[in-house]
């Protein structure tokens, strides 16, 4: 590990030392193409998984594909545009009003999270969506994810030494907590992802780590407490997890497991899943990984996990080489965000942990989620774009 890390660093140092020459920017094209590839793969899988239901309920096999494709194109454009802007503007006070954009975002997210609780559309017993006429519904918690990444990275980079003490960590937490609190009311799993982002950024920044282990222990205890003493439906989720084949709430997970186990080594071939034919409810959403397993087999499933690992590796490289700590911590936040979602999603689909609704980044159906993720990737790419070297 150390060896490779050194190599990466020396690689860039060498580039820098190769003076004299023109200043180059280390724009991470691998990450750009990797992201675009995952989005494309997502569209293919969304078409595969949703065409049956789309035909059945909307008379158009490409109903979901079209909607997602529009968001994908929009999101990719946003990503590229964002990546061209210097990320440092985010914490640079705006002219005239002298307020940092990150603060504006913070206030905006706060407002939207409150708004969604008031006017939110109630879908399946949870208010998570705001209906925007003509565009569709929008999930403010996705914007909150961006905000949490940028805000935490800002707070941590502003005074990194503070985080060596628990006081500093609490200070960051106090500022971020209101957003997480507003999310947790309606969406426990997203709140969990947000907490992971905050924790990872702080953890990476801090030199002293002892109390973080305490926080991890506390976090685990909190999760257990929520599950054990929480609302009834969460307790029954535990039952469903343990008795997935018999519990009525285990239906969706069980159908996913059926899909995974019938994939075999090489899969049934793209488009040949049977479980997507009405057995897995909304197989193009959170459960899409199970259909990937069924159609592409073990090889496909492992390949996709490796793609994600590669993507995380690129973010790691950006974080390590970023021009300043803020840029590093943004890359760390994005990395934490994607890693948390991938791990939780795959763990849920394989019934490794109790069921909770987290989409698979870039692949699962969902416009807000995709655009928000691509926006974050844009910022991360923007960080890479600020890395300079000479030829």
């Amino acid at each position, binding site marked *: *590990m150390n060896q490779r*890390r050194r190599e990466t660093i020396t690689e860039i140092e060498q580039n820098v030392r190769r003076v004299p020459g023109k200043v180059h920017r280390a724009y991470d094209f691998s990450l750009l193409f990797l992201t675009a590839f995952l989005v494309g793969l997502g569209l293919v899988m969304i078409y595969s998984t949703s065409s*049956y239901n789309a035909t*059945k309920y909307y008379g158009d096999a490409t109903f979901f594909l079209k909607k997602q494709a529009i968001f994908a194109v929009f999101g990719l454009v946003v990503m590229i545009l964002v990546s061209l802007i210097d990320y440092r503007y985010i914490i640079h006070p705006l002219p005239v009003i002298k307020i940092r954009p990150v603060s504006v975002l913070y206030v905006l997210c706060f407002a939207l999270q409150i708004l969604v609780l008031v006017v939110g559309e109630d879908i399946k017993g949870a208010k998570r969506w705001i209906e925007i006429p003509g565009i569709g519904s929008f999930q403010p918690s996705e914007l909150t994810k961006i905000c949490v990444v940028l805000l935490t990275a800002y707070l941590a*980079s502003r005074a*990194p030494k503070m985080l060596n003490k628990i006081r500093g960590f609490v200070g960051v937490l106090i500022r971020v907590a209101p957003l997480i609190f507003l999310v947790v009311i309606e969406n426990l799993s997203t709140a969990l992802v947000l907490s992971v982002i905050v924790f*990872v950024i702080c*953890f*990476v*920044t*801090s*030199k002293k*780590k002892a109390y973080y282990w305490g926080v991890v222990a506390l976090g685990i205890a909190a999760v257990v407490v929520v599950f054990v003493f929480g609302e009834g439906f969460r307790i029954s989720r535990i039952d469903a997890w343990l008795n997935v*084949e018999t519990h009525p709430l285990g239906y969706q997970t069980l159908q996913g*497991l*059926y*899909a*995974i*186990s*019938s*994939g*075999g*080594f090489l899969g049934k071939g793209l488009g040949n899943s*049977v*479980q997507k*034919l*009405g*057995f897995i409810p909304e197989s193009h959403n959170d459960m899409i990984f199970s259909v990937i*397993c069924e159609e592409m*087999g*073990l090889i496909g*499933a*492992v390949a996709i*996990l490796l793609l*994600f*690992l590669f993507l*995380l*590796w690129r973010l*790691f490289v950006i*974080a*390590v080489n*970023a*021009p*300043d*700590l*803020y840029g*590093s911590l943004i890359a*760390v936040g994005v*990395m*934490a965000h994607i*890693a948390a979602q*991938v*791990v939780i999603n*795959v*763990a849920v689909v*394989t019934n*490794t942990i109790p069921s909770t609704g987290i989409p698979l980044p870039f692949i699962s159906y969902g416009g807000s989620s995709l655009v928000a993720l691509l926006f974050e990737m844009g910022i991360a790419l923007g960080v890479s774009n600020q890395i300079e070297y000479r030829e």
Partner: protein
Amino acid sequence: MHFIRTFQKRNLLLVLFVVILAAIVLMGRVYYLMVPGSEHLAKAAKNLHERERVIKAERGRIYDRNGEVLADNMPVCTISVIHNQITEAEKVIQVLCEKLELNEDYVRKRVEKKSSIETIKTNVDKEVADAIRAYELDGVMVDEDYRRFYPYGSLASKVLGFTGSDNQGILGLEVKYDFWLKGENGKILTMATAHGMEIPDMAESMVTPVTGNSIKTSLDVAIQSYAEQISMKALEAKSAKNVSIIVMNPQNGEIYALVNVPEYDLNEPYELTEIYKAGLKDEELTPEKKTELLNQMWRNSCISDTYEPGSAFKIITATAAFEHDSLELGHNFYCPGYKLVADRRIRCHKTQGHGSQTFTEAIMNSCNPAFMEIGGRTGIENMYETFRALGLFEKTGIDLPGEASSIMHKAENVKEVELATISFGQSFQITPLQLMSATSTVINGGTKITPHFVTEIVNNAGVTIKTVDGIGETGIVSAETSEIMRTVLEQVVSEGTGHNAYVEGFSIGGKTATSEKLPRRSGKYIASFLGFAPAKNPQVIAMVIIDEPQGQYYGGTIAAPVMAELFEVVLPYLGIEEESEIK
């Protein structure tokens, strides 16, 4: 301005390491689910996706000894509709109404019902089904099926039995040989979506049905139908409740005919025949009553009912006596018309007595006191030893279900009176078939036989996979006793009480019997005759049993002529040559 420091890079590396570890764990989990642990779940998934359509196997046929088909299959079809595959509902309704001659409301209700599959009509003739198929209507399914068909209708109904709605054997040979006849149903597996729609182009696996094995029986359509004719004639002439005729080969137990009139139509086994319905109005025919009557109609009294064999049993008594040297052909008997046994005076059927007689005369006269004497001399131990050897304490083992067991006294309970009555065939019960089977052993030289119908089981490729013969242990009865018995029984027919069974040109042995049914003095009798031919080397043994005849009821008077009528035709038919004048 801060830069990322080395310890922070190390921290980040730790985070990355944790993520990689988690990814490896998840890959392991996915691998476990997809490869080693997939069997159970994948099977459950397969069950969930597969729709199984059964293709019924054709049942094996039943043949008579000459290859005539007694039980056959008729191709029929089942017409059903699948609601969500129907595209032209009105046309479907119209075509089905027209072709199946059903009323519109009935069809409409089924076509419009939102079920996965709805049966419209079963047992539809193939031509009609083909006509419907020709319309190629979406959502209309035509499934082929077979229905059991008995070309001879009621012929040998008590033997063949019939099958139920799933072509499973219910009675007779159909149930006894169900294992061999039924074949194996095939199936077509198709894949279906969660909404029950079949998925086109999905690999269908098909298991071809295996036609059942056919069975070849010893029945002879000609003998069976002739026997049925004369039984029916006797039934009508004597207003009897039941007339049975069994024709068998005494050498190997092959049954040529087993008649038990009134028979019933095997193609309509649940319809009461007129005889059983007689005198009952429809409203009196409650379901319970109907079931009771059907059970009576289906009952095979030759094997399911026991009776007191009466005088025909004297054959067995004499055999036991000869075998135990308590009787010789030269012995003389005196009959005063009765015999005093213990404190009882048991009468002969001829009240004035037969006077002095040899053993041959005693059996020709069917003299009860003589046989009481013979039984007394032999003793119950010896008598039972012979009975047991002749199989009277066990079932004959005939290949039909529902055979009754004999009802015998326990040896230690048999006192003088019981021994006397047993000697002339009273106070115990056996089935007619047991008597025939025992008598066969007596006259065939002492070989035990098992009465049976099925001689061969042939698979669908025409290869014999099992053969059955009824020949058992030999030496049950000595050759001398057997010969004496054949000789004296021939005299019973040529000169004695069995004279009415005499057919010119043939040597026939036999014995009459008249049994009074229980309770005594009810005026209900069973008249029977047991005969065989040729007397010297019996090739056929037959029994005529007339249950509850009106008027004349002596076996010699009413059953023996039926035997003559039977032998007149059957003996030449079986190729038994007429002998030159024997006396």
